[in-house]
């Protein structure tokens, strides 16, 4: 019998199911692989399909070996390796296609399908988004339906819905087991062995300003990070998320400079109680960590080290290829008098041969005898009183970009304002630097957290005032609202509740509002996904178990609990499945069985295997009073059940007769 099973061959319908399901799992990988390799794989896949549908003969052994060799070489030449994520998954993909041309027995087909499941797991190494999760769930449903079809020797295309429903039922019943295993399975702090990492997309805040760099980010609705505050949300005008600090300029480009690396927060005076919050940073490909001005503690909860530069830039030791989560405190009101020896010189650095008009204007202000604080006011007034506009599509600037901006175009966004302001300050002898990062955020009431998108990327200035230390000045926020092109940009310094601003703007209709609300719902889904699914690590597991009253459980005990719970769940599911009362789906049979029960109560029990006609004869004799009705019911039943034509009227008649008995 086992021998017989080993030799079984799959049915045609089973094989078509297999091919269809495998195609859905292969597709994303084929799209990701180099085109030549993908096309070759698709050709092999097509060969098998043609074999099933058109009867093409499959390649013989020498050709199969040759193909295997070619594909293997192809993967190796493309990736220069065969291990690791990209090469490994590519190898699995092409080998799965090759396996299709030497698939004969049912067991071959099943093992190929299992490899399909394996490739699903491979797909998660590339993306763990909600979309990918849902897509691959669909793929698993199809693979399972294909597995059911393969195991059904009388399978036919007519059973498609049955297989899908059955597969769905299996997955649904597996769900509780999955949840229990996901929560209780012991997590490790570090991988078993390290794997080479793939290339990471480089989107996010740049560590230098060059005209246009931030403008490309402005359009992006991608989430940069999310923040949960422990207490109340700070005011919108305090939400300055500090990132790279730029010191050096050649008149057009602004760059970072060497700063002292520290492992504790540089000393400064806190003027308000610190706020505590948790940041969930999306993967960015950079090592910046963001905090509100100014951080008063080092980030906690990262799985690797972090440090801080003397100008309060927080950095993590590793480049963020994954989401990171950390808790940190900031003092929103502070007195920062941290000025290192070199800092003053660097904060006054300005090339002498560019932006001469700007320098001349600043020197004219000095000649008026203004002090540092008055110079700041004077510069801000210059923006306010002249026709400066805030726009996301600024005109191009000439070789003296600051001159061109301040005296000519007067249209730009945050980086234009920040850099021109710092240039003015430096020309006037006030130490100044550009700070980049994010400003504001939109509150999600569903999750009670703040979303900071890439479109909130911002640049502002810091000036050094003797006796007061570094002061934040945001020239952009001094542009009057009527000179800001978009309402959203005008509101970002005033409120985190973007819905009210959206609703308030006359140009926003119901559609925009609905869209905004949907986006918030979706974002809270995404946030929960990140927090409870993707970010479920050892720490989260500890936290959850503690909340459930389980403390300090060793991994051995955790495993034992897990096995116990799974046993319990399987037993519960068994009871559910095995003890479920058989449900008679055919209404005709249901009515007839009710008729039998009624007669049984009167003392005439239908024998096992007694036909309806025989039973009717016997019952009429035993229950002469009902003989008319018994004959009528039996006639209707036999007609409905065995006669080819069925009409709704007679079913109603049958039901009525049974009810009247």
């Amino acid at each position, binding site marked *: *019998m*086992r021998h*017989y*099973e*080993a030799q079984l061959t799959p049915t045609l319908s089973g094989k078509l199911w297999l091919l269809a399901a495998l195609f859905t799992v292969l597709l994303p990988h084929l799209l990701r692989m180099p085109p030549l390799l993908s096309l070759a794989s698709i050709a092999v896949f097509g060969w098998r399909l043609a074999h099933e549908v058109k009867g093409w003969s499959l390649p013989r052994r020498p050709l199969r070996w040759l193909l295997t060799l070619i594909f293997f070489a192809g993967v190796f030449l493309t990736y220069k390796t065969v291990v690791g*994520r990209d090469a490994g998954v590519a190898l699995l993909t092409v080998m799965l296609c090759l396996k299709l041309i030497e698939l004969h027995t*049912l*067991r071959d087909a*099943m*093992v190929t399908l*299992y*490899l399909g*499941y394996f490739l*699903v*797991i*491979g797909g*998660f*190494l590339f993306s*763990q988004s909600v979309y*990918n*999760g849902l897509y*691959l769930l669909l793929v*698993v449903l199809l693979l*399972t339906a294909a597995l*059911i079809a393969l*195991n*059904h*020797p*009388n399978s036919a295309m007519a059973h498609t819905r049955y297989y899908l429903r*059955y597969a769905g039922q*299996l997955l649904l*019943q*597996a769900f*509780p*087991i*999955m949840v229990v*295993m*996901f929560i209780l*399975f012991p*997590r*490790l702090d570090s*991988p*078993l*062995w390290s*794997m080479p990492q793939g290339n990471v997309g480089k989107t996010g805040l740049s560590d230098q300003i060059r005209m246009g760099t931030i403008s490309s980010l402005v359009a992006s609705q991608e989430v940069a990070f999310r923040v949960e505050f422990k207490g109340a949300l700070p005011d919108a005008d305090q939400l300055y998320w500090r990132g790279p600090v730029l010191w050096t300029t050649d008149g057009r480009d602004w760059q970072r400079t060497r700063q002292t690396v520290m492992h504790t927060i540089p000393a400064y005076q806190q003027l308000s109680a610190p706020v505590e919050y948790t940041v969930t940073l999306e993967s960015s490909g950079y090592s910046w960590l963001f905090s509100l001005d100014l951080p008063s503690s080092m980030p906690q909860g990262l799985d690797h080290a972090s440090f801080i530069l003397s100008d309060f830039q927080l950095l993590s030791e590793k480049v963020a290829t994954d989401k990171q989560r950390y808790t940190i405190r900031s003092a929103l009101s502070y007195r920062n008098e941290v000025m290192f020896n070199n800092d003053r010189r660097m904060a006054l650095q300005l090339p002498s041969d560019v932006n001469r008009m700007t320098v001349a204007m600043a020197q004219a202000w000095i000649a008026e005898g203004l002090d540092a604080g008055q110079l700041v006011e004077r510069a801000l007034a210059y923006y306010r009183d002249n026709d400066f506009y805030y726009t996301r599509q600024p005109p191009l600037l000439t070789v003296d970009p600051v001159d061109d901006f301040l005296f000519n175009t007067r249209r730009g966004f945050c980086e234009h304002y920040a850099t021109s302001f710092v240039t003015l300050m430096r020309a006037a002898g006030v130490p100044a630097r550009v700070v980049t990062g994010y400003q504001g955020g939109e509150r999600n009431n569903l999750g009670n957290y703040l979303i900071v998108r890439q479109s909130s990327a911002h640049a502002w200035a810091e000036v050094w005032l003797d006796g007061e230390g570094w002061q934040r000045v945001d020239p952009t926020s001094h542009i009057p609202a009527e000179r800001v092109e978009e309402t959203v940009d005008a509101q970002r310094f005033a409120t985190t509740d973007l819905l009210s601003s959206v609703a308030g703007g006359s140009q926003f209709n119901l559609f925009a509002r609905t869209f905004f609300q949907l986006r918030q719902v979706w974002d809270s889904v995404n946030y929960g996904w990140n927090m409870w*699914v*993707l*970010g479920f690590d050892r720490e989260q597991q500890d936290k959850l178990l503690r909340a459930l009253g389980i403390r300090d459980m060793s991994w051995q005990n955790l495993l034992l609990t897990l096995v116990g719970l799974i046993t319990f769940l*399987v037993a519960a*599911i*068994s009871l559910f*499945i*095995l003890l*479920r*009362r*058989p*449900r*008679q*789906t055919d209404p005709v*049979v249901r009515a007839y069985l009710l008729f039998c029960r009624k007669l049984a109560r009167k003392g005439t029990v239908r024998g096992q295997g007694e036909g309806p006609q025989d039973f009717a004869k016997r019952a009429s004799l035993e229950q002469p009073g009902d003989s008319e009705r018994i004959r009528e019911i039996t006639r209707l039943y036999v007609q409905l059940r065995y006669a080819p034509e069925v009409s709704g009227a007679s079913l109603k008649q049958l039901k009525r007769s049974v009810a009247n008995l």
Partner: protein
Amino acid sequence: MRRDQAEPGPVTLTRRRVYILPSGSGIIFALLLLAMLIGAINYQNSLAFIFTFLLTGMALVSMVHTFRNLNGLLFRVGHVPPVFAGEQAAFPLSVENPGGQQRIAIKLSFREQTPLTLDLEANGGQWLQLHHPTSRRGWVNPGRITAYTRFPLGLFHAWAYIHIEMRALVYPTPAADRKLPAKLLVADGSSGDQGKGDDDFASLRPYHPGDSLRHVHWKALAREQGLMTKQFGGGVSEQLWLRWELLGNTPTEERLARLTRWVLEADARGMAYGLALPDREIAPQRGDAHRRLCLEALALFNLREGRE
């Protein structure tokens, strides 16, 4: 103990009778799950964990489904028609599904035989024939039936043994030589055209139960004139005695083979014949019932009942 004894049937596959173990592909699947788990741990990939656990859960749940697929089936045996040794005996078996759920890909087989696959509707049933080869005359007991299934996912193999009482009567293989011994015909024949047997057709009369099917006038049935039996003249009054001693000292089984052939020949020619065995004598008669009686006597000659 109990489970080795055949039951008179109907047999229901209760929970205790159904066994279940992982199949070969189930073990491969388990190894693959382990590989997935290692991958998930190594890449610390939450979705990989989730799907590995989902597939694990699905495999465990499929065990219950495979078990359920077999659990509760009801088996009955029908009348087993006799066969000649060397032919396949057909055992009619009724499988009933008392549950409200379909049963898919149930496989049934005698030991070492190719299984039969069937699907059963909810509350449905089906008659099927399981075949078993025969080699010797007498009662043949095919042994237990194995019912098994791997549906839905093929990861588990659930099986049950059905020890239901059933046996087939196996007649001796008729000898190849179709000729009735000439001296037999000469000795007992009194008149008519001996040897031509079926040719001397006389008339038609309505069919009575017990008439040989060979004498049914099938063409009349085809013309919708009802079942008619052909009556023959000539040999009708002949009485043949098929005697054990007629065969001299041929070995027992060969004698039985010859006698079997003679019974069939005499029956085919519509003759009345009697059978005389050393331990039993059956008076001359004709008809299907008589033929069956003679063949059964030959099948069971010198055997205790129940020989396998």
